[in-house]
């Protein structure tokens, strides 16, 4: 099984019914699985911070959501994450990294470098994963922390696990 299929199972196990995303290449398979599943709804966002606001609305309505994005989108979410901290709303995030190991596009490097410090400054618990076979179990732990503890928790999938984008 690929990690995408394992992550899909984690979403099921945590009763996550709605995924909000600005997509990334590394997320395309798990997003396809979610789009095909009758039990899941995928909402494509204009910009990533919308997804943070949406996580609060889902939680207020007693549903569970998850937010999938590329690391560049984390920068768009900074002030929105203050709402998660203020409300203790669960916010489970799966983030594919850019701007790390072997990145071909230098414009991706500053935000990639800042992704984890910025999230941690906003109170998000971050778990970086470098091996593909550890993505799903780490996301399972992050979902547990989010939904059982009322925290924002993110899994940062390292480019070592995804392979780098080459043009």
């Amino acid at each position: 099984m690929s990690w995408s299929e394992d992550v899909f199972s984690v979403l099921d196990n945590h009763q996550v019914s709605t995924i909000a995303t600005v997509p990334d290449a590394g997320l395309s398979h798990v997003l396809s699985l979610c789009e095909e599943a009758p039990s899941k709804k995928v909402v494509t966002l204009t910009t990533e911070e919308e997804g943070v606001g949406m996580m609060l609305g889902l939680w207020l309505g007693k549903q569970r959501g998850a937010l999938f994005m590329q690391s560049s989108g984390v920068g768009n979410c900074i002030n929105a994450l203050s709402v998660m901290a203020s409300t203790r709303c669960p916010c489970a995030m799966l983030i594919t990294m850019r701007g790390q190991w072997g990145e071909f596009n230098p414009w991706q490097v500053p935000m990639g470098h800042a992704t984890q410090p910025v999230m941690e400054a906003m109170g998000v618990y971050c778990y970086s994963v470098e091996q593909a076979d550890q993505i799903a179990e780490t996301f399972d732990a992050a979902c547990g922390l989010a939904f059982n503890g009322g925290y924002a928790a993110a899994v940062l999938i390292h480019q070592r696990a995804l392979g780098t984008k080459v043009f």
Partner: protein
Amino acid sequence: MDQHVTLPVDDEGRVRRRPLVAELMAHRGEALVITGLGSATYDVAAAGDHDNNFYFWGGMGLTAMTGLGLAIAQPQRRAVVITGDGDMMMGIGSLATIASAAPDNLAILVLDNERFGETGEQMGLSAGVTDMVQMAKGAGFQKAATFATEAEMRELPDLLFSTPGPVFCVAKVAPGNDARVLPSTDGAYLTRRFRDAL
């Protein structure tokens, strides 16, 4: 809105927001209400606190998207967003997200005073060439309209609380700050209270 109700206006004939919101909230029924930070939060709180009101105190630009999440999570209930022009403009791209998701139980009301009321009444972008209703239509809203007079605003209760959505309404209201009516600022409490009341 009842025919006998006369909404107060300012000396330029613009409807005052506080009595407008009070009149609208009298029609809320079982609706779930999310308010945008600043005057929209105070206006809705002034109409009477309610366990199924959720008040933003920060996170400018997010209110409409929280309404979308709520509408998806509670498809049998009406979800209503009441916010200001600054909050809506900051999250204007969310109109595309919402129109595409197309929840039939969501309505958004923008109380458009064309100003940043919290920070000194600086003019907002909706005072100029920008038309949020045209932006909503471009984003894909089939039901989007501006309401400038009391007579036009008589349609608002039905549009907010019963017309199949998604609905986007802009009510042009008088500038000027009403007395601040402050609900709880404890976000964790407001969240738990809202969920427990479902």
